[in-house]
């Protein structure tokens, strides 16, 4: 999420879902992976819902949030950090997730695999392509 208020909503929704479904958690994955999976699903659902409500695409929702980012009191990034955020938003949804989890949060591929249900090999390929696209974006903007 980019917008602070949206992030706050998604975070609360995530913890509510965790609270409601904790009994059904069977320990088949790590608790961290289970909670993170709920969080990613809630984020995607939130963006899709906002897009549908405003009759725009998911990408347009994120672009609108990006336009306000510089003025956001909870964003203290410099020009390069802002540009990187813009580059990430140009990626497909799932590729954005993979990139953020690997680059910003330094999760291992095995952990990302458990969260997203994607093979490690596919994740490595996705991240490699994401890096290439971001570099091209920054070099051209």
């Amino acid at each position, binding site marked *: 999420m980019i917008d602070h208020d949206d992030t706050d909503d998604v975070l609360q929704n995530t913890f509510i879902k965790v609270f409601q479904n904790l009994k059904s958690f069977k320990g088949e994955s790590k608790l961290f992976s289970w909670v993170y999976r709920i969080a990613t699903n809630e984020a995607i659902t939130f963006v899709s819902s906002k897009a549908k409500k405003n009759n725009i695409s998911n990408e347009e929702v994120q672009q609108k949030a990006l336009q306000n980012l510089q003025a956001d009191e909870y964003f203290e990034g410099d020009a390069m950090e802002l540009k990187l955020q813009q580059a990430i938003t140009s990626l497909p949804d799932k590729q954005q997730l993979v990139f953020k989890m690997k*680059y910003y949060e330094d999760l291992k591929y095995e952990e990302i695999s458990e969260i997203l249900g994607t093979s490690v090999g596919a994740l490595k390929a996705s991240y490699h392509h994401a890096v290439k696209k971001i570099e091209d974006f920054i070099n051209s903007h």
Partner: protein
Amino acid sequence: MNDFKLDSRPNIKSGFKAPDAYFESLADRVMLNLPMQEVKVIPLYKRRPVWVTSAAAALVLSLSLILNKNEAAKKTALPDNKAIENYFAYQADISSYELLQNLDVEDVSELQESVNISDEAIEEYLAGENVYLYE
């Protein structure tokens, strides 16, 4: 500028920060937004033993089965009109006089209409029985 390489430099930060004391109030805000659920009250002790409830259920079931059986028996015991006619004709020890005593005028009229007796049958009957004609 075509020399930007993501992996050749220290990781760029996201630039986002959490508001001060954000996580301290998060738990309270989440609890406030939890949907209201009815709490199921389960007593700590059982008010009556299980065997009492089981015995009562068995008793009700038995009674309903017995009543049902009697009801079914009653229904099957009722004979149809044909069976009644056959009984009176071949098995019942009832004289014509007794039969007549139990028939009223309406029954006789109905019989006259519904039962088609030929003249020959009447003459045969009159010839064979000790019939006294009352005038």
